[in-house]
Structure formats: C-alpha cells, structure tokens
C-alpha cells in the first residue's frame, strides 16, 4: 500500500498542488511553478548514513614479544609509555616529569603496521630552530631558553580506517545575474537543485588512539604517507618510546566518520561548477568494505613551559612537518601596531596635503 506523500514547495514550504492546465505543480501560496520531476527530486529522502566499520585491527603478539617491552608510568600526569627492554625511559614526553618503570607490558594488541622514524633527533632539533625562526611576535626570551635536548621520539598509536564511500548528495545552488538599464538595477537569482551520486575510496584515515596525545596536535602533523609503512616488529622500537593506546577503535570511529563524510561532500561539491553558491541540503553516505587497522606512527615531541603555560611541539617523524602554537609578545604587538598606525596615518594625511598643493 502506497503512502500518501505531501509535497512541500521548495520556496515557501507550503503544500503544493498539481495544476491541470499547465501540467505543472503550482504553489497556491507563492505562485511559483515547478516541473513534476524537479519537485520529486527535491522531496526525495536520500536515506540515512550507514557508516559501519569492521574492526579487525591488531594482531596477537608472538611468543615472547610482549616480554621484551617495559611499561613506564608518569607520576604526575598518569601517562603510560612503552619502551623496549634496552631503552630506559626517564622523563614523560607529555609533561617532562620523571617516569617510573611499572613492569612488563601485557594485555595490549600488537600493531598491524609501523612507519619507522625517517628523521633523527638532529633533524628534530633543526626543525624546532626553524619553527622559532622568523616569528616576529615571538617573545625573544622564549627563543633563548634552550630546550633542544629534550626532544623525544615517540611512536603514537593510530587507528587507520579504509573504506569505499557511496554517496548521494543533494545541494541547493544559486546563480546570480545582475544588469541595469537607465531606470533600474536588476538582480536575477535562479535556484537549482543539484543531485550528485557516486563513490570515492578512502585509505588509512588516521585517528589518534591515545587520550594523552592531544588530537589537534596529532592531526596537525598529518599527513603520514602510508607507502613507507611496514609490518610491525619490536626491533623498530629500539631507542624510541611508544605510547600505549587507550582509545578503542569503536570510540575513534566517530571522528573517522566525520572526516570521511565531510571530504565526500566537498569532493562532490567541487563537481558543481558555474554557480554563485552551493550548499549541501541532504547527504547520505554509505560505507562498504570499512576496515580499521592499528598502526604506530613516528612523532618527535617537545614540551616546554613559559609563564606557567605548557607549550607542546610536534614534528612528523616521517615528513618533518613541524607544528606547535607559540606565545605572542603582547607588548611588541601593541608597540608595533601603534608605530604603524602613526606612520600610516601621517602618510595618509601627507598625501591629502600633497593633493591640495599639486
């Protein structure tokens, strides 16, 4: 049994009726006319999102592998890190306070992949130097305090999500045309409905698997290039520390979904050319072959404190991308703002005088 559906006018929202004379749908409230097909498409429900993932991430440790790793706990921030039996960890990469060895590692998953460190500690120090360079509003004192030795190389746990995204998106678009004659200025706005459907594949979308690692910091050192990834082996940990994951794959899924859906809408939006405005109205994204994997990615970390505020810097251990918010020298900002204001103001006034005299 078919369900009666009331069609709504895309312009004013009123109930629309079929006009036998014109063979079109006409709205009795705002008198706008529509073709039948157009209205059907405008009212179609695209369906709900279906974004499910198969989480077969991580593997079981081989015999004895887990035993070669030691776990450390930070007394002040509670952060847990792992080092191999030959690496002694002394300070916490998150808060720079001392850590204490808490025994052998157990009950964790073995990562599926690892991207080994491509850049060494010297490169990290260089990265920091360059990051602090040429920043006009950075307080001089900050640059002079020397923290270069405290850069730590750490493997950060990430959940990687692969999927084929099938999308059906409906956009509202407008095209504006303007012209004038001797008496009036005219503006014509044409409204369109854009339907796009298709599929796009995403590979290894990373989501930070550690609560101690600030998500925005980790997302800022992206992208990581998966081509350099290899199967995990504890040998890679030698000399470095690794973070233990404490966010389940299920919990990371929301963030992955958010990013995938946004990029899908953007990708299809870029196929709509020649319009003044394009806005998504409804979108339905269905994922197939969604898979989550567990990987370790290399990051150089540095913490420093300045005026009772903690500043954390991170460098992508594979690509060298260096990020970290810096404090602003407020005094310098206002000093230069005032100098420039006076200077530019004087120039403007001077130009006025010159215009009079010449």
């Amino acid at each position, binding site marked *: 049994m078919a369900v009666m559906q009331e069609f709504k006018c895309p312009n004013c929202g009123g109930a629309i009726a079929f006009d036998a004379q014109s063979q079109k749908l006409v709205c009795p409230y705002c008198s706008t006319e529509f073709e039948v097909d157009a209205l059907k498409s405008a009212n179609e429900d695209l369906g709900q999102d279906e974004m499910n993932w198969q989480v077969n991430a991580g593997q079981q440790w081989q015999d004895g592998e887990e035993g070669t790793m030691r776990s450390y706990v930070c007394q002040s921030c509670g952060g847990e890190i792992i080092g191999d039996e030959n690496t002694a960890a002394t300070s916490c990469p998150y808060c720079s306070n001392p850590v204490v060895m808490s025994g052998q590692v157990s009950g964790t998953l073995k990562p599926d992949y690892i991207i080994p460190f491509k850049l060494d500690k010297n490169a990290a120090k260089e990265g920091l130097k360059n990051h602090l360079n040429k920043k006009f509003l950075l307080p001089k004192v900050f640059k002079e305090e020397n923290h270069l030795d405290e850069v730590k190389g750490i493997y950060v746990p990430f959940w990687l999500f692969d999927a084929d995204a099938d999308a059906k998106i409906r956009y509202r678009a407008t095209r504006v045309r303007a012209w004038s004659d001797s008496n009036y200025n005219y503006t014509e*706005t044409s409204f369109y409905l854009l*339907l796009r459907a298709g599929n796009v594949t995403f590979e290894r979308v990373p989501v930070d698997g550690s609560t101690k690692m600030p998500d925005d910091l980790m997302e800022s050192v992206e992208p990581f290039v998966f081509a350099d990834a290899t199967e995990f082996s504890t040998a890679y940990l030698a000399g470095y520390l690794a973070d233990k994951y404490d966010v389940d794959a299920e919990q990371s899924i929301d963030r992955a979904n958010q990013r995938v859906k946004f990029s899908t809408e953007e990708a299809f939006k870029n196929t709509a050319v020649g319009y003044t405005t394009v806005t998504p109205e409804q979108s339905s994204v269905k994922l197939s072959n969604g898979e989550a994997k567990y990987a370790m990615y290399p990051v150089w970390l540095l913490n420093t404190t300045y005026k009772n505020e903690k500043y954390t810097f991170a460098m992508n251990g594979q690509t060298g991308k260096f990020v970290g918010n810096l404090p602003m020298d407020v005094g310098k*900002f206002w000093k230069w703002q005032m100098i420039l204001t006076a200077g530019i103001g004087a120039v403007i006034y001077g130009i006025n005088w010159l215009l*009079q005299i010449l």
Partner: protein
Amino acid sequence: MKRIFAFVFAVLMIVSLFAVSAFCAEVDLASTSQNEKQFVVDEAGLLTNEQIAQLNKKCKEVGAKYGIDVVICTQPSLNGNTVDVASADFYNGAGYSDNGVQIFVASEDRKIDVFAKGTADKRLAVHLDTLRETATDFLSNGKDDYFSAFSAFVNKVDELFPPHVALYWIPLSLILGFLIALIPMMIAKKKLKTVDMQSGAADYVKAGSMNVTQSNDIFLYRHVDRKAKPKNDSSHSSYGGGSHSSGSY
C-alpha cells in the same frame, strides 16, 4: 579790499572747477577702464544695480587675492544649449582670464553651472559640487534668493581656494592607519598558530578513485529583484577648457 577778495575768490572758483573736472576726468577714465571688465553680468535681470555693484566689488577682491577672475553670469534662456556649453561659451567669449571660476545661471530653464579654468580648476576641481550646492541652497524650492546665492558662492571660493585639509582628516587618518596596520600585525600573529583539527580526510582519498555515477542539475525557479536607480540630474563635464559641475535648482 572787498573787490580784491571777490576777484581772488572768483579765480579760485574757476581754477577749482578745472581741477574738479580734471579729477572727474581721471575718475571717468579709471571707471571706464574698469568697466571693461565687469565680473557680474546679469542679462536675466535678477539683481538690482546696488547688488550688482556689491557683488562686483567682492569678485574683484577675491579675484585679486588669488590672481583669478571670479565671474557671475545670469542669462534668461539656454537657447537650446546645455548649461555647461552655454557657461563655457560665455566665459571664453567675454575675454576673461585663463585662470578663473564662474557661476552661471539660466533663470527660465532653472539650470546652474559652476565652471573653473586654469589655476582655479586645479584648486577647485574637487570642490565644484560644493560650490554649486552652496549657491543652490539659496535657490531651490522656490527661494530664488539670487543675491545670497552669489554672495555665498564668492565667499566659498575665498574659503576653498587656498590649499587646506579638512580637520576631520586628522582622526580619519589615524583610524585608517590603525586598520591598515592591523593587516601585517594579524598576519604575524597568525604565523604563531600552527595547531588545528583537520576538517576532512582529503589527504587520504585514493587517487583516481572518485567516480561520479549521477550528476543532475535541476532548475527550480527564478526570482528577479529590481531597484530603482536614484534620479540624480547633476553632471560633470570638461567642455571649454576647464571643469564643470552642472545641475538644476
């Protein structure tokens, strides 16, 4: 004794007569040469003789101060010309200086034009509209106070001719300076922030995997908005070797 006194008195009278007539002759020559250049030409008969004399004196004073001719001209009709053409033709045909400013009124057509040439053009070109509006204020809405309009015009020329920058430019320069200075300062400030969440996963799209299976652009409806253009019958031109600001009143 009385006879000698009377005779001397008579001689003095005769001599003074000659002196007076000589003086008159000097005065006549001077006013004749001055009459050759009248700065107020009132062909439409809008001013009394006394008003013409007053305005003429004012025009001479202001003109002498700046080395220009300040001219007031009224005509009854434009005779089919546009007001800027009639104004420039009059000024150029009457033999005034190459540096001058003129206000021209055609009373039946109710058209007004301000024309500036030479050094007056350089100094007053940006102020022509103001000069015209100063006069029009006394003429519009049927006021028709021509004398006040022309007096105000000459006073305005005296005020605006010397190089000057309006007082409001001092705070305005500072405000503009502040806003422009913000641009480089904000850019420098932005450089300090490098940490942010990613908006999407564009970096992880498999190259060439995007496949559009359906792409329809459906037209819904159209909406035309029209706004009436403000009717503004003032215009600017450069007929006759100088700048004009013309309008109605």
